């Protein structure tokens, strides 16, 4: 009996192993049909040479917002050009950057990749000769706004194209301001006063994603500009022409920023809040203001939030001071695309990007779906039926007289970025004095000289 049992068990074990192995082979075709059908569909009418392009995107969500538009344009392009097949691989920011490093070090970069026009991302790739030089004239009809391609250029050569214009604003909840009789801030003093008033009323004043840290340096750029009246002063420091320490304006700015922490002007637990936490806090009406970029135009239409909030959300530019105006905006050009130098079909990749950036494609769809602000001229696509929030954002955008350019922390290596963000987090956690904060920033800048 026992032997029989053992035999049965032995067979069961080997059976499992075989079934599992067979499954891995058999499972694949079972999953395949939808894909092969697609392939067959495109292959059935071959026109010209068959081309396969690999497209590596950092827009992981393909069913909402920019990711959906990107996918739609890719699908439409494949339909119009049956000989081209675009394989999309989409990962979220951090996994994307990690895998990009693997691709780069094995010299196996996909044909078209998402890139950021920021030294921390694109410079090593350009320096290693992995990015294809693009011809600016090829994209003349895309009508990029002036300066949009600067971040993607090195030594006068173009290596990428930007997708969005990003700028920082203050979103606010009109109802909370009215209910508590707080004046919507127009000056930096009023912003502080508003923060104090809300704290007194037991409402979180400003929501911010302090844990991730990247929004804090952008905020500091604003505060500093309102003290010295010139965004370029910070660039001068980054270029090694000046220093943060010993500059009275920067010190005053750092002190003012820390003041917000002292008066508890930031939402409770802001230093441990990530993007979703701070956004939801604002969306649930628990915070009066949300310091964030223009890409949140969708707040007014996001059905995850109560209707009362959606009808009451507005955007204002960062308040003015005697030196800085509300038209001085922290604005930059964010993510975009580059083509790999070792691409087998560079012309086809460029052709696709031309299609993608044709004004009626990306720029129009991005704007009209409220998913962001294109880096291209899109005046002709204003429909007039934009949400109130969108109109306020476009008002801020079209009023820009001077802009900050690439966010401070993105001007250098990863190490630089981490140091800069940590310095801001420490300042706002009141772990260091404003003087020490400026010293830490200088130490970070020393890394990229």
């Amino acid at each position: 009996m026992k032997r029989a049992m053992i035999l049965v068990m032995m067979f069961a074990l080997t059976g499992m192993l075989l079934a599992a192995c067979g499954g891995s082979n058999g499972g694949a075709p079972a999953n395949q049909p939808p894909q092969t059908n697609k392939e067959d569909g495109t292959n059935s009418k071959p026109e010209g040479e068959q081309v396969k392009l690999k497209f590596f995107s950092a827009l992981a969500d393909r069913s909402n917002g920019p990711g959906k538009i990107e996918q739609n344009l890719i699908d439409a392009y494949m339909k119009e050009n049956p000989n081209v097949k675009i394989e999309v691989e989409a990962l979220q920011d951090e996994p994307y950057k990690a895998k990009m490093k693997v691709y780069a070090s094995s010299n196996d970069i996909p044909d078209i990749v998402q890139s950021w026009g920021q030294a921390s991302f694109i410079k090593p790739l350009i320096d290693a000769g992995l990015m294809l030089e693009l011809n600016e004239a090829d994209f003349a009809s895309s009508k990029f706004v002036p300066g949009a391609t600067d971040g993607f250029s090195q030594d006068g050569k173009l290596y990428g194209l930007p997708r969005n214009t990003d700028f920082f604003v203050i979103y606010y909840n009109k109802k909370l301001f009215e209910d508590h009789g707080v004046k919507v801030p127009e000056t930096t003093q009023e912003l502080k006063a508003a923060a104090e008033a809300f704290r007194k009323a037991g409402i979180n004043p400003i929501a911010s994603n302090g844990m991730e840290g990247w929004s804090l340096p952008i905020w500091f750029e604003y505060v500093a500009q309102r003290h010295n009246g010139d965004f370029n002063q910070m660039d001068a420091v980054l270029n090694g022409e000046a220093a943060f320490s010993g500059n009275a304006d920067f010190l005053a700015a750092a002190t003012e920023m820390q003041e917000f922490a002292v008066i508890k002007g930031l939402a409770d637990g802001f230093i441990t809040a990530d993007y979703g936490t701070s956004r939801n806090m604002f969306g649930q009406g628990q915070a009066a203001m949300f310091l964030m970029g223009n890409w949140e135009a969708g707040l007014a239409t996001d059905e995850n939030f109560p209707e009362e909030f959606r009808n009451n959300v507005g955007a204002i530019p960062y308040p003015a001071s005697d030196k800085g105006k509300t038209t001085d905006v922290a604005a930059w050009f964010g993510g975009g695309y580059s083509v790999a130098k070792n691409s087998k079909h560079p012309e086809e990749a460029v052709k696709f990007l031309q299609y993608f950036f044709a004004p009626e494609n990306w720029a129009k769809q991005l704007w009209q779906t409220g998913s962001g602000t294109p880096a291209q001229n899109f005046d002709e696509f204003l429909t007039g039926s934009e949400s109130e929030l969108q109109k306020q954002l476009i008002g801020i955008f079209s009023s820009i007289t001077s802009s900050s350019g690439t966010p401070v922390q993105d001007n250098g290596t990863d190490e630089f970025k981490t140091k800069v963000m940590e310095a801001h987090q420490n300042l706002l956690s009141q772990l260091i004095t404003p003087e020490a904060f400026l010293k830490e920033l200088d130490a970070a800048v020393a890394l990229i000289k």
Partner: protein
Amino acid sequence: MERQGRPPIVLQLLLGLVALLQIFPLVWLVNFSFLKSGDFFGSEILKWPKTFEFANYVNAFTYGSVPKYLLNSFIITAVTIVAAAVFSLMMGYAFTRMEWKLRGLALGLIMLGMIVPIHATLLPNFTLFNNMGLLDHPLSLILPYIAFSLPISTLIMTGFLETVPRSIEESAVMDGCGVFGLLTRIIFPITKPAVATVCIMNFISWWNEFIMANTFLTSDRFKTLPFSIMKFAGQYSSNYGAQFAVMTMIALPTLIIYLLFTEQMARGITAGAVKG
């Protein structure tokens, strides 16, 4: 008499509290999988949904491709744990019962595998698989999964086998049993608790594995369950409701297996630990 009575009330309360703490994350996970994304990060710890958002689960099954990824995950994990169990059993036998040169060295080498961090192997493996044409293939996950399972699995197996008296095998040999017969008819049935332990441990390690899957897989065809969560990750904020729905489904098999085999597992580990 007293021993059969209930344990003291303090102990019961304490244990109840521990149980509650252990179960809470699961309750929270299931609870929030029925909420709208906008309800997350609110002031309540648990929140009774105004309307149950079954749409989260619908999204997970349709856009999130849960069934397809679940099958992929299942196949990859199943092959891995079966192979790892077979290899570690055979190696455990070879290390405890057979006398051969370099035995100590070989065992040491395999144990060294425990100190290799996964991240250090990503790039070399990527290059290797790229050259072998194995990228974007289930084997590119199964092979490293098995390799990373072996050190700890072998350790448990050798530990367990040390405690098994040799006399059973000796009598089997006298009855004319060969080496493979010994393994399959004698050793395997005796070491079942250890085999179960090894299988469950490996299941828990690889069921959720993401970093290798993320590096070696590109096409949708072979992707595993964690990718489903990623599909709901937006550029800035995400569809948290759907992500929680996916996570609930990822957690289920682990939970079921754990509940079914928890006793076996405890036996396997403690038996192995008796002898140093």
